[in-house]
C-alpha cells in the first residue's frame, strides 16, 4: 500500500505517514488538524471541502492524498498573513455573509480562486463559479456581495 510522507500545506512541508488512498480532506483534518475544510457530501457536490492545489480550487473530499503530494496546498487557515485577514475574509465579516458558517471556509477558498483569475467578477460570474458551493442557510446574496466587496478592496479602492 503506497504511503505519502510529506505534504506542502500553507507554505510548510508537513511530515506525515499516511495511506495514499486516504482523502486529502481526511489527512488535512485528522492528521494535520487543519479543520477549516469541512466534509459535506463526499461527492464534490457541496464545496464545503474546497482547498487550493497549486492555486486551483479542488474538492478535497474526492482528492486522494497521493494525488496531492508535491502540490502546494492552501487551506483557509493559510489565508491570513501576519495577522492580516485576506480581503475576502474581511468582506465576509463586513457583509455578515454567514449564518451557521459551516460552508464559509469552502466559499472563501472558491472565492479566493475566482478573484485570482478575475479581479472584477460580475454577479453572473460569481454565481456561475460558486454554483458548486452549497449554503443551506441561504446566505447566497450576501456571499455574492462579499465577493464583490473583496474585489473592490483588492483593486485598491476600499469597499466596493
Amino acid at each position, binding site marked *: 500500500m503506497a504511503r505519502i510522507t510529506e505534504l506542502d500545506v500553507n507554505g510548510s512541508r508537513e511530515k506525515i505517514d*499516511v*495511506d495514499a488512498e*486516504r*482523502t486529502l480532506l*481526511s489527512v488535512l*483534518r*485528522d*492528521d494535520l488538524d*487543519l*479543520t*477549516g*475544510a*469541512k*466534509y*459535506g*457530501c*463526499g*461527492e*464534490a*457536490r*457541496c464545496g*464545503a471541502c474546497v482547498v487550493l492545489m497549486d492555486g486551483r480550487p479542488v474538492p478535497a473530499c474526492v482528492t486522494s492524498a497521493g494525488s496531492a503530494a508535491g502540490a502546494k496546498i492552501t*487551506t*483557509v*487557515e493559510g*489565508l*491570513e498573513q501576519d495577522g492580516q*485577514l485576506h480581503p475576502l*475574509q474581511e468582506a*465576509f*465579516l*463586513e457583509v*455578515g455573509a*454567514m*449564518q*451557521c*458558517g*459551516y*460552508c*464559509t*471556509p469552502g466559499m*472563501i477558498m472558491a472565492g479566493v480562486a475566482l478573484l485570482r483569475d478575475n479581479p472584477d467578477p460580475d454577479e453572473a460570474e*460569481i*454565481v*456561475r463559479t*460558486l*454554483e*458548486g*458551493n*452549497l*449554503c*443551506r*442557510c*441561504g*446566505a*447566497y*446574496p*450576501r*456571499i*455574492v456581495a462579499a465577493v464583490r466587496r473583496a474585489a473592490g478592496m483588492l483593486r485598491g479602492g476600499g469597499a466596493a
Partner: protein
Amino acid sequence: MNEETVEGLSLEPERYELHAEEEQHWEAARREFFGSVRGGIVVVLALDQVPATRASGAGRRGGPGVSLPQEIGVWLHIGEDGRVTGYTGKVEVGQGVRTSLTQAIADELPVPLASVRLVMGDTDLSPFDGGTSGSRTSPVVAPQLRKAAAAAREILLDLAARRAKAERASLFLEDGKVVQRGTGREFPLAELAAGQRLLKAVGDDVPTKPATAWQFADAPVPRVNGRAIVTGGHRYTSDVRRPGMLHGKVLRAPSANARRESLDTGAAGAMPGVALVVEDDFIGAAAPDELTAARAVEAIRVEWEAAGGQPSSREIFDYFKANAGEVPGSRGPTSHTAGSAAEGLSAASRVFEGTYTAAYIAHAPLEPRAAVAEWSGENGDGTLTVWTGTQRPFGVRGELAQAFGVSEDRVRVIVPDTGSGYGGKHTGEAAIEAARLAKGAGKPVKLVWTREEEFTWAYFRPAGVIDVRSGVDADGALTAWEFHNYNAGASGMRTLYDIPNQHVEFHPSRSPLRQGSYRALAATANHFARETHMDEVARAVGMDPLAFRKKHLGDARLRAVLDAAAERFGWGEALRRSPGHGFGIAGGHEKGSYVATCVEAAVDPAGGAVRIVRAVTAFECGAIINPDNLRNQVEGAVIMGIGGALFEGIAFQDGKILNARFSRYRVPRFSDVPVLETVLLDRKDLPSVGAGETPIVAIAPAVGNAVFDAIGVRLRSLPLAPNGAEPEPA
C-alpha cells in the same frame, strides 16, 4: 447595602452572602457555582417565583429523557476580571442567537460587547433547557438574560455606592465601569467583583429597558464569533479532537426494517488497529483513521432479509388516508370548529374543493450529524462526555443516560456552535453511536455521519395530504371552510381569515419514514394548502387575490405584512409582464410572527421549468433585536423555502431512500436565488418573538399562485416543479 433598591426591584428575598442568611440549598448552589467560576458575582434567574429552596439545580436532575420543570432560566456571572458570562441551555445553530443574546446582556448592563461571552448548551454548566426550537430563544431567553443583567447592574451600583460612600443615585454604569456623576470617579467591574462571592436569586419580574431604549436596535451588530468562522478556527463538533481519539463507522442495514440473518466479523476483526463493536443490533468499528474504519465495516459479512409491504413515495398519500386515525404514540386528532361547516357548505352559493400534498423533505444541514464521545474512569464505568451538534443537549443527555444505564449526572453533553439544524437535530443518534464505539474501543471516538446516512437515517419533515372545501355566498364572501390534514401536522393549521363556519382537523397517520420537526413544522404544508386554496377561490369569484384576502381579514398584523409586501412589490399596479411570467401572493402567521411574500415567477414554455424572478417578503416579529441578523434569517428562510417549493422531495421504495445524495436531491444553489427584497416591520410596542422559522411559510404558495397567474395551470403538490436530478456542475 441600599435596601430601597432591593424593594424597588421586587426581588426575591435577599440571598447575598453579605446578609449571611443562606438556606442549605443555596449554600450547595453557591459551592457548585463558585467551584467552577471561583469568585465574583452570580445572578440566578429563578422562574415563576419558584421557592428558592427548590431552585438550586433542581432542573438538572431526573430520570432519562424526562423534561423537568424549568425552574432556573439563566445564570449570569461577573468575574473578578470584570468579564461577564451568560449561561443558557440554548444552542447556536446558525440563527445568530449567540450574537443577539450577547447583545442583550451588553445592552442591558450596559458593558462593551467584547466583555460579554456566553456559555451555551453545556449540560454541566448551563441551566436546564428543553431545547432550541419553536422560535423560543428570542422571546424567552433574551428577556431572561436582560433581567439577570439588570439585577447585576443594581448589585454593581450597590457595591460601588458602598465603596464610594456615596448616594446610589449619583452612580451609573458606562463602558464597563460604574461612574460617579460630578466627581467622575470610576469603579471598573473587575474592581467591584474582585474578592466577592455573591450569589443572588431574582424572580422573573425584574424591570428591564424598553425596546425603545435599546442601543443596538438600529445598528447592525456583527457576529460575535465571525472571525473564528472565516479563518476556519471555530471548532464544530466534527472538528473536535481528543487525545488518542479514533474514528468510527457504523454498519447500516440496506433498507429500513431489514432483519439481520447472518453475521461474520472474522475478516474485519483481524484488521490491525481496528476495534469492532457488536452489541445486539449495533455493529460498528473504530480505527485510527476514517478510511480504515470504513474498510473494516465493508469487510463485515452480513446477510439481510428485507421487510416487505412498505409503501413507496408514489402511493404515500393514499396510504396516509387509509391509515389515519389511531396511531401509536400520537396524541390523536386535533381539531377546531366554529359554527357548522356542513351547514355553511350546504347554504353556499358556490363550493370549491382542492387536495394539496407535500412530500417528505430532508433538512440536509451542511454539517451532518456528528459526535465525539469520551469515557473516563475504570472500564467505561465512569463519566461520559459527548460533544455533539444537537438542538436538545439535555434531551440527548437523557438519551445517553438511558442507553448506557447511567445517571444523568455522569453524562455531560457539550454542543459546539453547530453547522445548522432547521429542526433536524433534536435527537442523539450519532451521540449514542459514538459513545457505544468509545466504550467498546476504550478510547475517545469521533463519528461523523456521511451525507447518505444523514439523508437516510435521520428524520424528515412529514409528508401529508390536505383536503380543503370552501363555500362562498352570492357576494363572493367565504361562509364555510373545511380543512382536513392527514399526517402533515397541526402547526399553522388554523386560518386567520374570518369565516363563520369552520372545521379544521389534523388526522395523524402512520408514517413509513421517520418524521419530526422542521423549520416552521407543518406550517409550511398548511400554509401551502390554505393560501393556494384562497387564491383559487379569489380567481373563481373574480377578485384580486390580495383584495380577497383582506376582505376576510380582521387581523391587523397580517393585513400589515400583506400590505407592506404588496406595496414594495408593486402589486396591483401596472407591472410590466413578460410572456410566461406571473405574480402571486401569500401570507400567514406562526409562532407569534407574521409574514407575506409576493413572487414573480417565470415558466419556461418548452420544458415547463419554473424560475422565481423576484420575491418580496414582509415580516413582523415584534420589536426588532438585531435588524441585520433578522434580514439574514428572513432571506435564508425564503431561500430554503424555494427548495421545498420547487424541487425537494424524498423518493423512496421498499424501505430505501432513492435520492440520498446532493447529486440526486436538489437543494437551492446560487443560481436559484431570485431578486430578493425584505421589508421589516418593527413593532417596538410588542415583545420580540423568534424569526428563524415563520418567514419560510409563504414562499411556496406565492410561487404556485404566480405559476397559475402565468400559465393558468394550478399546481397543488409540493414540490411544484421537480425536474429530476440536478445538472452536472459546470
